[in-house]
């Protein structure tokens, strides 16, 4: 066997192993979601069984339907994403183009928001939202999510804007586009990749969020992650139902992940090679 071929075999084996470790819980959840209640905790685990779609039916249309909660999650995530984009894109453009004191502070603040233990912020957030009467509302949750997603999105978008040479704008000015149309027709289309990455990260972050959703929302606004928690009871946990709900909640994540795959990888590596691969 040539060195090339053996290398390939090792690589593929290693990838499969890593994939399996990652995919195992997902697959397990998928299997569980299709099992009748009695099989869920059977030992040794039942691997071959007749799939039972009933769990999904119950989760979707049963007495405690997941549907309104899917809606809550969607509303909060879409709102958080939209507002983040609307504010972060122009802000990042400003940061990238105008050199001012906030430049370095932004990087630090962004890192800080990602590093701080979120549980430490729950009480101040609660007191604040309570004071303005926004507890358990869409706008309350969205506001809290914005405090994390905005700095992150600005920080991410700045690197995309910085990759665009200044001459691009100057050419557009001379082409009589003016400042706004230069931004709209010349600059914005060139950061589409960055916008895609921002949307994915911000949306998924809001969609998957649990801690704030349960403590600052929970009754009138109950997102999917919080709702799923209801299947965990004191007397028994409805594992099959919980799994079915989990799979349903995963679907948008997977769809967005697949759709944005190309951009996500680029987003993770941006800045690794200055100006690499663009222009």
């Amino acid at each position, binding site marked *: 066997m040539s060195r090339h071929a053996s290398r390939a075999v090792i690589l593929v084996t290693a990838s499969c192993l890593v994939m399996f470790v990652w995919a195992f819980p997902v697959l397990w959840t998928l299997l569980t979601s299709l099992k009748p209640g009695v099989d869920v905790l059977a030992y040794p685990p039942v691997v071959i069984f007749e799939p039972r779609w009933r769990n999904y039916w119950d989760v979707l249309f049963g007495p405690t339907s997941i549907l309104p909660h899917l809606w809550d999650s969607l509303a909060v995530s879409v709102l958080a994403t939209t507002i983040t984009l609307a504010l972060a894109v122009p802000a990042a453009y400003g940061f990238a183009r105008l050199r001012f004191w906030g430049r370095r502070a932004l990087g630090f603040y962004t890192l800080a928001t990602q590093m701080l233990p979120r549980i430490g912020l729950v009480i101040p957030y609660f007191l604040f939202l309570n004071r303005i009467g926004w507890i358990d509302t869409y706008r309350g949750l969205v506001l809290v999510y914005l405090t994390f997603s905005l700095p992150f999105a600005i920080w991410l978008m700045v690197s995309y804007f910085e990759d665009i040479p200044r*001459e691009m704008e*100057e*050419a557009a*000015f*001379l082409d*009589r*586009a003016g400042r706004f*149309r230069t931004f709209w027709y010349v600059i914005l*289309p060139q950061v589409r990749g960055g916008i895609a990455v921002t949307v994915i990260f911000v949306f998924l972050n809001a969609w998957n969020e649990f801690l704030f959703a349960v403590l600052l929302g929970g009754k009138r606004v109950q997102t999917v992650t919080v709702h799923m928690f209801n299947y965990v009871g004191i007397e028994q946990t409805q594992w099959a139902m919980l799994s079915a709900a989990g799979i349903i909640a995963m679907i948008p994540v997977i769809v967005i992940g697949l759709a944005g795959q190309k951009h996500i990888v680029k987003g993770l590596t941006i800045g690794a090679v200055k100006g690499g691969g663009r*222009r």
Partner: protein
Amino acid sequence: MSAIGSVRLRDIVKTHGPVVALESLNLDIEPGEFFALLGPSGSGKTTTLRIVAGLEQADRGTVAIDGRDVTRLQPGDRDVAMVFQSYALYPHMTVAQNIGFTLRMVGTPRAQIERAVREAAARVKIDHLLDRRPGQLSGGQQQRVALARAIVREPRLFLLDEPLSNLDAKLRVETRVELKKLQRALDVTTIYVTHDQEEAMTIADRMAIFIEGRLMQVGTPEAVFERPDSVAVASFLGNPPMNLVPGELDGRTLVVDGHHITLPHDHAGGARPVTVGIRPGDVRIDGEGLPASVYLTELLGETTIVNLRFGEQLIKARLLEKRHLREGDEVRISFNLPNVHLFDSASGERIALA
């Protein structure tokens, strides 16, 4: 000759932080001229172009185009088009969209844009590439797209910022000929920034020499080359550069390295130290004259550059004929006296004839 496209710069001052980019610049460019701004990097030539374009604001002074003060106008309102060194093509648009963008921005009807784009593209021979994107083009093709984008709108002024510097040597020489023809055909005033003196000399009607933020001299390439106003311009122009040796001038007598030379012309002013400038082509190696020794010869194909040790100095001579000179050979050199340039040692300025 065109009647529009004059530029007048008055007392332009520009600083970048502590660095003086331009100090009190006055410059007039006539309609229809192909005008080169020539200088080493950091000399202020690009800053001048950008101030004319409106991409930079001068700290002081005024810019007028065709008699209209445009100092405070936005770049888009000055009716000028520019080709950038990097071309700055819009990567997400096709070639046709790139060229037509400026027309679209002023609401030109679609059919008219299409026609204008086609014409402009045909002029620079890229009409077969209209549906491509810039990323799919070679450097030379991109350069043509940038040109087409500038000519499509028929501006008052073309501003070209080192437009050929990203092309390889052969293409650069071809393109500069085409550029000159294009400018003649369109009859549009063109300001051309370059650090390549050969490019400026061959292409420009007139040129301005910038050194360290100062405009040193303006004139036709011939005039500037043959009568440099100062040591700085003299030593910047010419390849290899002019030989500069210290000497002593008194009327018609020049003393160089202890040797007395009688000049064909008289010079005003008393005896004084001077800098003597002699172009390598004006140094002759023949049987008589001043003693020198061969230091190194550089064969350049058609010509040979001979580096000579002359007293304490190293000077270069350009020989058109083949000569077998070896290092260390003792030779005699003489200067083509009518072409000897004399500069005041203290001020560096050219010394006038009496």
